[in-house]
Each structure stands twice: as structure tokens, then as C-alpha cells.
């Protein structure tokens, strides 16, 4: 389709905006390390909320992790939850305000380690909330300790010799596990390691919020993300590491999508 410019100009050319910062985020610059894809994921969530025009009807729940300050970045009402308890806090909010949109933004330590109980029970109850689950295979904020999602062999502050299956066991695949629960409506795992996948990730987030809008049940999007600082890689190497190591361990795809009927 041809581009029509709304403005009346007498020159032959004018500039059309291809990409500009979403109003779904505040103007506060983030504290994230250079190249950390937390920032990308923030932008995607902000864009979805803006495009669905639900910013004013949304209450977000920040968790404890590098994203704890996300309450300063998302341009909607926010509340900050204790480590791992965001889904319980979100439940409290949503049960009082069933017609509002409620989402949590949680890291893999927060959600898969200390908080696995809260997310499982929220999912089993079919809480109509959306969980943005940022899996970077490590505890970022506390300085790079093992997460339940840390890969076998991966060196972290608490697995200095690499994660050893015989001691620390095997990584927990959250999407696969939650998909077994009947209360879940939409579950997808995506990645933020390159532009095409980033766009795919945004569509997944959109679908999750749509599921909430249609009161289908619990929705979660797991986004494979980077932690250059604690991985000891530069930002670009980190994206490569996601592609080469994380995706094979955490297959991307839709794990649950009940759309309408179950």
C-alpha cells in the first residue's frame, strides 16, 4: 500500500516515522547493564500494552531480580512483590479487580527457584494473569549464581566447576511443566537474541495478554534472555550464546494454547 502523509507540505518529501519509543515505557533510563536484553523485553511489553490500549487498565507486578526497578520503567500502575511471590501478589490484585489487566515480570531465579510454588498454584487456579518470564539461565542481580535453568556444565558463582547433573540435577523446563496444568491457557517460549525472534516474542506477549483479555486462564511467555555481565561475554557474544546453547536446551514454541475451548 502506498504511503500517504497526513501533513500538508509543499515540499516533495517528508519523514515518516518507522520506529519510535513506545509510550508503554516511562522516560526513566534503565539501570540494566549494556546489552542486557531485559531492556528489549521491557520495550516489547510496553509496546503490547500500548497497542492494546490497556496501559490505563493494567497493574504490573515487579519481582525481585535485576528487573526489580521495572516499576520505574513500565508506564502503568506497578507494585513490587517479595522474591518469588509475584504470582501471589498478582492473584490478590486480579481477584479484587477482575476487569483489569495484571501481569508479573519475573526472572528465572525468582520464578523457577524460590517462586515455583506461587507460579504453579496460580497456573493451577487458572488465575487470569500474564506472566513475563525472563530466563537468562542465571541469577543476574546477586552476581551470577546458578538458577534452576542454568545449563549443565555452565559455570556460575555457585557452580564454579560447571553445573553437574549428579550434584545440582537437571534444568527445570518451566513451560513444559506448567503446560501439564489444566488451568493454563497460553504458554509459549520465545527468544530475544535477534530481530526476527524479537518480533516473534512480541507476538507471543500479545497472544498472552489476549488470552487474559478473553478470560481464558493463566498465560505465560518465557523469553530466553542474556546476562552479559555474569556470563562473562560481550553483548553480541551473549546473543550468540542464547542461540547456540540455550535454545537447544529450551526448545522454542507454543506449549499451550486453548483459544476458546479446552
Amino acid at each position, binding site marked *: 500500500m502506498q504511503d500517504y*502523509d497526513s501533513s500538508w507540505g509543499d515540499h516533495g518529501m517528508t519523514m*515518516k516515522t*518507522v520506529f519510535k519509543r513506545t509510550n508503554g515505557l516511562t522516560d526513566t533510563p534503565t539501570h540494566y547493564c*549494556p546489552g542486557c536484553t531485559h531492556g528489549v523485553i521491557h520495550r516489547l511489553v510496553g509496546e503490547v500494552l500500548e497497542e492494546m490500549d490497556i496501559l490505563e487498565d493494567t497493574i504490573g507486578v515487579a519481582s525481585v531480580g535485576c528487573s526489580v526497578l521495572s516499576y520505574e520503567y513500565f508506564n502503568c500502575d506497578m507494585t513490587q512483590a517479595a522474591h518469588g511471590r509475584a504470582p501471589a501478589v498478582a492473584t490478590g490484585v486480579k481477584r479484587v479487580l477482575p476487569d483489569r489487566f495484571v501481569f508479573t515480570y519475573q526472572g528465572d531465579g525468582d520464578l523457577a527457584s524460590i517462586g515455583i510454588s506461587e507460579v504453579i498454584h496460580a497456573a493451577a487456579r487458572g488465575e487470569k494473569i500474564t506472566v513475563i518470564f525472563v530466563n537468562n539461565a542465571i541469577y543476574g542481580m546477586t552476581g551470577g549464581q546458578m538458577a534452576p535453568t542454568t545449563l549443565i556444565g555452565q559455570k556460575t558463582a555457585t557452580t564454579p566447576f560447571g553445573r553437574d547433573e549428579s550434584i545440582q540435577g537437571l534444568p527445570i523446563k518451566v513451560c513444559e511443566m506448567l503446560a501439564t496444568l489444566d488451568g493454563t491457557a497460553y504458554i509459549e517460549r520465545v527468544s530475544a537474541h535477534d530481530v526476527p525472534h524479537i518480533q516473534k516474542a512480541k507476538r507471543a506477549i500479545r497472544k498472552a495478554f489476549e488470552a487474559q483479555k478473553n478470560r481464558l486462564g493463566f498465560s505465560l511467555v518465557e523469553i530466553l534472555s542474556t546476562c*552479559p555481565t555474569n556470563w562473562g561475554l560481550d553483548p553480541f557474544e551473549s546473543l550468540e550464546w542464547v542461540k547456540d546453547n540455550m535454545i537447544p536446551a529450551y526448545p522454542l514454541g507454543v506449549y499451550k494454547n486453548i483459544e476458546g475451548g479446552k
Partner: protein
Amino acid sequence: MEKRVVFNESICKSCGLCVQVCPTNVIFLADYLNGKGYRPAAVTDQDNCISCAKCAQICPDTVISVYRPVKVLQTV
């Protein structure tokens, strides 16, 4: 003519991801530091930017805005 790609230098963290993804390699890191102590990304060769917005998509810090020149139908 106006810029195709605009960087909000002050919040750039010099992560270099935009540099990596730019198909036309017009982005580089400046040789000075911004207020945060980072060398901000920049484009001088605006003409060779194709407004693909890859840089903006990958930028974790929403530093970048992208525009595309379009013809205007003559009105009046």
C-alpha cells in the same frame, strides 16, 4: 535533508548491538564519552541508512528512532 536514524546519545550504553545488526554498517561508536561514561553509538552517513530499524529493534535502551522519507501527494 532530515535524519533517517536518530540516537538519544545520553542514554546509550555503548553495547554495540546496533552496530552489529546494521545491514549497511553505518553505525559506529563515537570516540567520546557520554554523561554515563559510555561511548555512544552514532551515524553520520545518514544517506546510506535504509531505515530498516533493525538497530532500533535490537537496542535494549530505546536509544534509537528511525524515519523514512516519503513522497507527499501534492495537495491544492
